[in-house]
Protein backbone atom coordinates (compact mmCIF):
# COMPACT_ATOMS: atom_id res chain seq x y z
CA UNK A 1 0.00 0.00 0.00
CA UNK A 2 1.19 3.48 -0.79
CA UNK A 3 1.40 5.71 2.23
CA UNK A 4 3.19 8.60 3.83
CA UNK A 5 3.95 9.04 7.51
CA UNK A 6 4.93 11.95 9.68
CA UNK A 7 6.22 10.45 12.93
CA UNK A 8 6.18 13.66 14.97
CA UNK A 9 2.97 15.38 16.05
CA UNK A 10 4.87 18.49 17.03
CA UNK A 11 8.33 19.92 16.60
CA UNK A 12 9.63 22.72 18.80
CA UNK A 13 12.62 24.81 17.80
CA UNK A 14 14.12 28.12 18.86
CA UNK A 15 14.16 30.98 16.41
CA UNK A 16 17.40 31.05 14.43
CA UNK A 17 18.04 27.33 14.89
CA UNK A 18 17.78 24.84 12.04
CA UNK A 19 14.57 22.87 11.78
CA UNK A 20 13.68 19.46 10.42
CA UNK A 21 10.21 18.04 9.92
CA UNK A 22 10.28 14.35 9.15
CA UNK A 23 8.42 12.40 6.51
CA UNK A 24 8.75 8.80 5.37
CA UNK A 25 6.95 7.11 2.53
CA UNK A 26 6.04 3.71 1.17
CA UNK A 27 5.39 3.31 -2.54
CA UNK A 28 5.88 0.87 -5.34
CA UNK A 29 7.74 2.61 -8.11
CA UNK A 30 9.04 6.16 -8.15
CA UNK A 31 7.58 8.50 -5.55
CA UNK A 32 6.25 11.95 -6.26
CA UNK A 33 6.45 13.81 -2.96
CA UNK A 34 5.20 17.19 -1.79
CA UNK A 35 5.29 19.47 1.24
CA UNK A 36 2.48 21.83 2.12
CA UNK A 37 2.05 24.33 4.94
CA UNK A 38 -1.20 25.34 6.60
CA UNK A 39 -1.73 28.42 8.72
CA UNK A 40 -4.70 28.53 11.14
CA UNK A 41 -8.09 28.38 9.42
CA UNK A 42 -6.50 28.56 6.00
CA UNK A 43 -6.09 26.32 3.01
CA UNK A 44 -2.85 24.50 2.34
CA UNK A 45 -0.03 26.27 0.55
CA UNK A 46 2.47 24.47 -1.66
CA UNK A 47 6.08 24.57 -0.47
CA UNK A 48 8.00 22.21 -2.74
CA UNK A 49 7.92 18.93 -4.60
CA UNK A 50 10.20 16.12 -5.66
CA UNK A 51 9.49 14.43 -8.97
CA UNK A 52 12.90 13.37 -10.19
CA UNK A 53 16.45 14.67 -10.36
CA UNK A 54 18.45 16.36 -7.61
CA UNK A 55 17.77 14.88 -4.19
CA UNK A 56 17.85 18.31 -2.56
CA UNK A 57 14.79 20.29 -3.51
CA UNK A 58 14.50 23.98 -2.78
CA UNK A 59 11.11 25.55 -2.20
CA UNK A 60 9.28 28.59 -0.95
CA UNK A 61 10.14 30.70 2.13
CA UNK A 62 13.66 29.29 2.41
CA UNK A 63 12.54 25.69 2.91
CA UNK A 64 14.21 22.72 1.30
CA UNK A 65 13.71 18.98 1.44
CA UNK A 66 16.05 16.08 1.02
CA UNK A 67 14.89 12.99 -0.82
CA UNK A 68 16.59 9.83 0.43
CA UNK A 69 15.62 6.74 -1.51
CA UNK A 70 17.47 4.23 0.68
CA UNK A 71 15.77 5.55 3.82
CA UNK A 72 12.47 6.26 2.01
CA UNK A 73 12.40 9.70 3.54
CA UNK A 74 11.65 13.23 2.42
CA UNK A 75 12.45 15.48 5.38
CA UNK A 76 11.68 19.18 5.28
CA UNK A 77 14.44 21.49 6.44
CA UNK A 78 15.28 25.11 6.96
CA UNK A 79 18.68 26.43 8.08
CA UNK A 80 17.31 29.16 10.35
CA UNK A 81 13.75 29.05 11.73
CA UNK A 82 11.52 32.10 12.03
CA UNK A 83 8.63 32.58 14.45
CA UNK A 84 6.43 33.10 11.40
CA UNK A 85 7.26 29.54 10.27
CA UNK A 86 5.02 28.24 13.08
CA UNK A 87 2.26 26.33 11.32
CA UNK A 88 1.02 22.86 10.43
CA UNK A 89 3.11 21.03 7.84
CA UNK A 90 1.93 18.19 5.64
CA UNK A 91 3.92 15.75 3.62
CA UNK A 92 2.05 14.22 0.69
CA UNK A 93 2.53 11.43 -1.81
CA UNK A 94 1.05 11.30 -5.28
CA UNK A 95 -0.46 7.85 -5.44
CA UNK A 96 -1.11 7.78 -9.15
CA UNK A 97 -4.87 7.68 -8.66
CA UNK A 98 -4.97 11.36 -9.59
CA UNK A 99 -4.93 12.25 -5.89
CA UNK A 100 -2.51 13.04 -3.14
CA UNK A 101 -2.32 11.07 0.08
CA UNK A 102 -1.38 13.30 2.99
CA UNK A 103 0.48 12.55 6.18
CA UNK A 104 -1.14 13.30 9.50
CA UNK A 105 0.63 16.63 9.81
CA UNK A 106 3.32 18.01 12.08
CA UNK A 107 2.82 21.17 14.07
CA UNK A 108 5.94 23.33 14.04
CA UNK A 109 6.31 25.73 16.93
CA UNK A 110 9.16 28.24 16.71
CA UNK A 111 9.88 29.99 19.98
CA UNK A 112 11.30 33.53 19.98
Amino acid sequence: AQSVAQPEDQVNVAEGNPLTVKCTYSVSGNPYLFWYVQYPNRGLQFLLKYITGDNLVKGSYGFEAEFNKSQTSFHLKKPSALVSDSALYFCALYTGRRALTFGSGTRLQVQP
Partner: protein
Amino acid sequence: SQTIHQWPATLVQPVGSPLSLECTVEGTSNPNLYWYRQAAGRGLQLLFYSVGIGQISSEVPQNLSASRPQDRQFILSSKKLLLSDSGFYLCAWTRPSGGGYTFGSGTRLTVV
Protein backbone atom coordinates in the same frame (compact mmCIF):
# COMPACT_ATOMS: atom_id res chain seq x y z
CA SER B 1 -3.58 33.37 -13.55
CA GLN B 2 -5.56 30.62 -11.96
CA THR B 3 -7.64 31.16 -8.84
CA ILE B 4 -9.84 28.95 -6.73
CA HIS B 5 -12.80 30.20 -4.77
CA GLN B 6 -14.51 28.36 -1.98
CA TRP B 7 -17.52 29.50 0.03
CA PRO B 8 -18.83 30.04 2.56
CA ALA B 9 -15.85 30.46 4.87
CA THR B 10 -17.77 29.35 7.93
CA LEU B 11 -21.09 27.61 8.38
CA VAL B 12 -23.10 26.48 11.39
CA GLN B 13 -25.87 24.06 10.58
CA PRO B 14 -28.26 22.00 12.71
CA VAL B 15 -28.24 18.23 12.60
CA GLY B 16 -30.50 16.95 9.87
CA SER B 17 -30.29 20.04 7.72
CA PRO B 18 -28.98 19.99 4.13
CA LEU B 19 -25.56 21.18 3.03
CA SER B 20 -24.16 22.75 -0.10
CA LEU B 21 -20.57 23.93 -0.36
CA GLU B 22 -19.36 25.39 -3.61
CA CYS B 23 -15.94 25.58 -5.19
CA THR B 24 -15.05 27.25 -8.48
CA VAL B 25 -11.80 27.54 -10.37
CA GLU B 26 -10.91 30.33 -12.77
CA GLY B 27 -8.20 30.64 -15.38
CA THR B 28 -7.88 27.01 -16.39
CA SER B 29 -9.79 24.36 -18.30
CA ASN B 30 -10.62 20.79 -17.46
CA PRO B 31 -9.03 20.81 -14.01
CA ASN B 32 -9.02 17.83 -11.71
CA LEU B 33 -11.08 18.85 -8.69
CA TYR B 34 -10.99 17.50 -5.15
CA TRP B 35 -12.81 17.74 -1.85
CA TYR B 36 -10.89 17.01 1.33
CA ARG B 37 -12.00 17.06 4.94
CA GLN B 38 -9.73 17.94 7.79
CA ALA B 39 -10.91 16.88 11.23
CA ALA B 40 -9.57 18.35 14.47
CA GLY B 41 -7.04 20.49 12.59
CA ARG B 42 -4.88 17.59 11.52
CA GLY B 43 -4.96 14.93 8.84
CA LEU B 44 -6.63 15.39 5.48
CA GLN B 45 -9.06 12.83 4.18
CA LEU B 46 -9.85 12.70 0.49
CA LEU B 47 -13.63 12.66 0.04
CA PHE B 48 -14.22 13.04 -3.69
CA TYR B 49 -12.36 13.81 -6.84
CA SER B 50 -13.46 14.60 -10.36
CA VAL B 51 -11.61 14.53 -13.66
CA GLY B 52 -14.47 15.95 -15.73
CA ILE B 53 -18.06 17.14 -15.83
CA GLY B 54 -20.35 14.61 -14.23
CA GLN B 55 -17.44 12.32 -13.30
CA ILE B 56 -17.20 11.83 -9.56
CA SER B 57 -15.10 9.32 -7.66
CA SER B 58 -15.91 8.72 -4.03
CA GLU B 59 -13.12 7.70 -1.73
CA VAL B 60 -15.01 7.16 1.51
CA PRO B 61 -18.62 5.96 1.90
CA GLN B 62 -20.42 8.56 3.96
CA ASN B 63 -23.23 11.00 4.34
CA LEU B 64 -21.91 13.34 1.66
CA SER B 65 -22.10 13.55 -2.11
CA ALA B 66 -20.40 15.65 -4.77
CA SER B 67 -21.39 16.96 -8.15
CA ARG B 68 -19.65 18.72 -11.00
CA PRO B 69 -22.31 20.46 -13.07
CA GLN B 70 -19.81 22.62 -14.95
CA ASP B 71 -16.15 22.23 -15.90
CA ARG B 72 -14.86 24.54 -13.18
CA GLN B 73 -17.51 24.02 -10.50
CA PHE B 74 -17.43 21.40 -7.79
CA ILE B 75 -20.19 21.10 -5.18
CA LEU B 76 -20.22 19.15 -1.93
CA SER B 77 -23.67 18.27 -0.60
CA SER B 78 -25.54 16.44 2.05
CA LYS B 79 -29.26 15.81 2.43
CA LYS B 80 -29.09 15.46 6.21
CA LEU B 81 -26.07 16.55 8.20
CA LEU B 82 -24.71 14.52 11.09
CA LEU B 83 -22.67 15.80 14.03
CA SER B 84 -19.73 13.85 12.66
CA ASP B 85 -19.80 15.93 9.47
CA SER B 86 -18.26 18.84 11.36
CA GLY B 87 -14.83 19.76 10.12
CA PHE B 88 -12.78 21.91 7.82
CA TYR B 89 -13.54 21.25 4.17
CA LEU B 90 -10.99 22.04 1.52
CA CYS B 91 -11.42 22.18 -2.21
CA ALA B 92 -8.39 21.81 -4.48
CA TRP B 93 -7.51 21.60 -8.14
CA THR B 94 -4.70 20.30 -10.30
CA ARG B 95 -3.97 20.34 -14.01
CA PRO B 96 -5.30 17.34 -15.92
CA SER B 97 -1.81 15.82 -15.93
CA GLY B 98 -1.84 15.83 -12.14
CA GLY B 99 0.89 17.07 -9.86
CA GLY B 100 0.73 19.61 -7.05
CA TYR B 101 -2.52 20.92 -5.70
CA THR B 102 -3.79 24.46 -5.29
CA PHE B 103 -6.16 24.68 -2.36
CA GLY B 104 -9.07 26.93 -1.63
CA SER B 105 -9.25 28.81 1.65
CA GLY B 106 -11.53 26.23 3.22
CA THR B 107 -14.97 26.10 4.84
CA ARG B 108 -15.30 25.45 8.55
CA LEU B 109 -18.53 23.52 9.09
CA THR B 110 -19.96 23.10 12.57
CA VAL B 111 -22.97 20.85 12.91
CA VAL B 112 -24.90 21.52 16.11
